[in-house]
């Protein structure tokens, strides 16, 4: 058994909740769990992954000591269902880790009364992760729940219909990616049948089979449902080629090949115009001389790698898929990887941001995965599609230039007076030396300090290394002199280096 640092995936209950909760319709969810299982995913985490203050229509049994030791939760569930069934057509009871460990018998309550239904979802929270939870529940809704719901009429449209499977709550940057995928679907002349679960009502899952193709937003989940539906599947694309393949593939599957080609041509003249211009400009040169790392969920890890490495020419230092460390014994230790070879830019979640800060690495952090406490609700920040190509290019470019600016010479206002005094002292020393009044001993660089400076310089991005090396040398010697030493220490170098991060 091994201790895992900062676990960054959650369990099947969260996955199930995050599939059900975004859907509209007259249904509610009952969480069979203690207070924490109610408030943490519904109130605390969701407030940061999706910036939603809390969820309507979610209730909980709030397991208390007596329920664990004696009663179980069946009675509470029964009473809750009794109270709620008058208000809702469907009730979904979700198991969570605690009700599973006390073997709560919620499944006994599955029932259909006067067209109102109670569903029990065993989320396998003790054993499954949230992606498996999403995957399983999506399939379950399609296979078992849809059949009992009133069949919704087929959408009348002369355009071919496409489903979008995902996003759910708790993904990263999903609002923007979802908007971009929808834009592409409309752009090639197709129509969205069901966007499940983000823009559909519960009853709409009865229409899933009406679509001619399925877009699975993420490789992490949704595929089981896609396979069960048996239509052509396409995954949310990141990068130029991936997006082109996606659009053409979708066009072929829907009989819209000419429209797809025309859309791509039009995109090159419009959405991608900005990318083309940035690519032609000097920005692109620093892409090819810089490094990046990514530790994210599979779709983003693969997509960013393909785009930044294969298309923009970055060198890739770190590649990791978050779930791998739970599924394989040879998973990468992200902290070691960061220390061994810190890239200029790193895409990850809050954990890696903390490691970078803890070790005072020069690496610039860019959010690209959950958990990450930032608001990500603008639809103008996609990573997917052609709009994503432009957006990613813009953020990496700005980050790299910000590194450059942080090395551009600056006189810090609070230090101005001290600097002036220093100059005057130095001038006097120099004059005294020329007049033969003073013998100045040069500040020496011991072997070990020199070696340390080399090491430190390697952490500095190549395109600012010259100015950084100058600054390190001059400033370190200044510190040594201030402390009346005639040699520079490793600590002096580190002290100056830490200022680079301002």
């Amino acid at each position: 058994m091994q201790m895992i640092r900062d676990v960054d995936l959650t369990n099947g209950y969260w996955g199930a909740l995050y599939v059900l909760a975004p859907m509209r319709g007259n249904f509610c969810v009952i969480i069979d769990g203690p207070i924490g299982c109610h408030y943490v995913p519904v109130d605390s985490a969701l407030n940061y992954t999706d910036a939603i203050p809390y969820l309507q229509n979610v209730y909980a049994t709030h397991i208390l000591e007596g329920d664990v030791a004696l009663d179980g939760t069946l009675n509470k569930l029964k009473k809750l269902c009794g109270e709620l069934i008058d208000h809702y057509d469907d009730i979904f009871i979700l198991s969570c880790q605690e009700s599973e460990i006390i073997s709560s018998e919620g499944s006994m309550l599955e029932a259909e009364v006067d067209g109102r239904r109670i569903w029990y979802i065993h989320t396998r929270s003790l054993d499954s992760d949230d992606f498996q939870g999403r995957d399983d529940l999506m399939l379950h809704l399609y296979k078992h729940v849809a059949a009992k719901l009133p069949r919704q009429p087929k959408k009348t449209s002369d355009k071919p219909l496409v489903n979008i499977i995902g996003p759910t709550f708790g993904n990263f940057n999903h609002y923007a990616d979802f908007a971009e995928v929808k834009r592409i679907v409309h752009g090639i002349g197709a129509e969205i049948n069901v966007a499940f679960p983000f823009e559909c009502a519960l009853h709409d899952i009865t229409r899933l089979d009406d679509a001619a193709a399925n877009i699975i937003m993420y490789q992490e989940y949704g595929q089981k449902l896609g396979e069960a539906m048996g239509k052509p599947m396409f995954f949310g694309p990141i990068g130029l080629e991936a997006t082109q393949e996606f659009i053409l593939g979708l066009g072929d599957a829907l009989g819209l090949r000419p429209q797809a080609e025309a859309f791509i041509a039009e995109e090159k003249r419009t959405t991608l115009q900005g990318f083309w211009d940035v690519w032609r400009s000097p920005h692109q040169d620093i892409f090819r001389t810089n490094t990046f790392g990514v530790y994210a969920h599979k779709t983003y890890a693969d997509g960013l790698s393909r785009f930044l490495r294969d298309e923009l020419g970055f060198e890739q230092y770190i590649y990791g898929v978050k779930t791998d460390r739970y599924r394989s014994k040879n998973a990468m230790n992200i902290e070691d990887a960061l220390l061994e070879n810190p890239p200029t830019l790193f895409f990850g979640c809050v954990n890696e941001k903390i490691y970078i800060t803890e070790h005072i690495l020069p690496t610039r952090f860019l959010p690209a995965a959950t958990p990450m406490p930032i608001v990500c609700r603008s639809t103008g920040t996609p990573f997917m599609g052609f709009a994503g190509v432009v957006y990613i290019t813009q953020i990496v470019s700005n980050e790299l230039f910000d590194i450059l600016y942080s090395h551009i010479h600056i006189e810090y206002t609070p230090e101005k007076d001290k600097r002036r005094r220093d100059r005057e002292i130095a001038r006097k020393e120099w004059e005294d030396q020329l007049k033969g009044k003073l013998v100045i001993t040069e500040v020496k660089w011991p072997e070990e300090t020199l070696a340390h400076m080399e090491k430190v310089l390697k952490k500095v991005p190549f395109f600012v290394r010259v100015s950084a090396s100058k600054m390190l040398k001059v400033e370190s010697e200044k510190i040594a002199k201030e402390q009346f030493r005639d040699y520079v220490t490793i600590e002096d170098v580190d002290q100056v280096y830490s200022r680079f991060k301002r």
Partner: protein
Amino acid sequence: MEPIKSIKLATQSPCPAFGGLRILTRLEGFLPILLGNHGCYYGLNFLSHFYAARKSIYAPMLYSIDFADRNLHHKLLEAIQQIIREEKPEFIPVINLCVATTVGIDIDEMARQIPEIIPIRITGFGTRSHAEAKDVALEGIFKKLKQLGDHKLREPKAVAAVGEIFPADAITLENLMEKLGLKFRAQVPSKDINDFRKALNVSTIACLHPFYTKTMRQFAEVGIEHISGAPVGIENTYNWIKDIAAKAGADAALAEKVAREEQEAVRRVIEGPLNLKGARILVAGYEGIELLVARLLIEAGADVPYVSTSIGKSALTEPDVNWLLSRGIEVKFRKSAADDLVAVKKYKPDIALAATDVAAMGKELGSASVYFTNLISARPLFLAHGAENILGLMHHLLKSRNSLNRVREFFQDTEMARSIPVQEVQEYLGCSGCAACDDREAN
């Protein structure tokens, strides 16, 4: 969110374990380990990394097959020993969460085998609120230190404070103790375990937040007395200074003088231009300081009809509760979110200080609501400076009502995701929720 009538709900609280982590992750040299389910780990890490400390939390992945494993205890011990070899922490708080407690993982036995371990049991079904989980964490730390014999250097006329406060308030306390001729030795919880050691060797504890009942028992066992409350508002400032002076053995005449001076300073602020006459404020907190905040607001002339908290009633809450009840104020212990929502609807406050969900409801109703933790807990409260700060904030919030209503009105004609249906909001506001409302409010 309709109130649920059929079952007994738990008190409104995030996962209580978060309260424990807030204390434990902030201590330097501590390496916290969670025992539970990965769902708990994810949520608690997420919360802790931005509300407690930017510090790693360790945990083993435990699946159902592991809970059936007879060697689980040994495997966990080995894993913990491995961590100790690699990271060399000073202490390892091992926190048993719901699932681990239910299957009976014996952390006390682990602590007997590995001296660095501080065993801590916090569950969503047993620990009543995240505030009280802080008490459990402190109790665990003090127990450990006492086992190590760190309580044997008693110092007379020395004071330590228990309760998370704004850093400026800690300095305020230090200055105040100096005026009284007392030594202020430590304020816990803090990031330095030495502060906890110092606290075990003072003569008097100032228990600033009224949920540290278990922790106070730890002090009582070694003969250290405590006082409750804090120097917030006019009456409390005077009483508290007199109390601490009497318990810690300060000069009585000096104490009277200091208490009068500080009380007058607070009175000048509260009765000055920052008074809150005509403002109705609802105080729906959850971590114990809401009782003090409510008293301060009432002294400043605000109409506070309702005060609620997630913590339970105890001897520590008694003086403040009696004060509130004697003024006919509705005081709710162990409240649920629905209690607060009902109160918001019933009392129509100008400002609701509440948890995220209830604050969101308040905003939908056009009341200048804010999240208690981020806005109130992150401010100085003590003496004149604290009063000035809190009252100033209330005036800011009152001024913000126009902007708030401008946005609320923009969305009034559309069925957005809401906690309260549009029609109810309109009934509540007594009109169509239109521009006229804003004009009326502005006038």
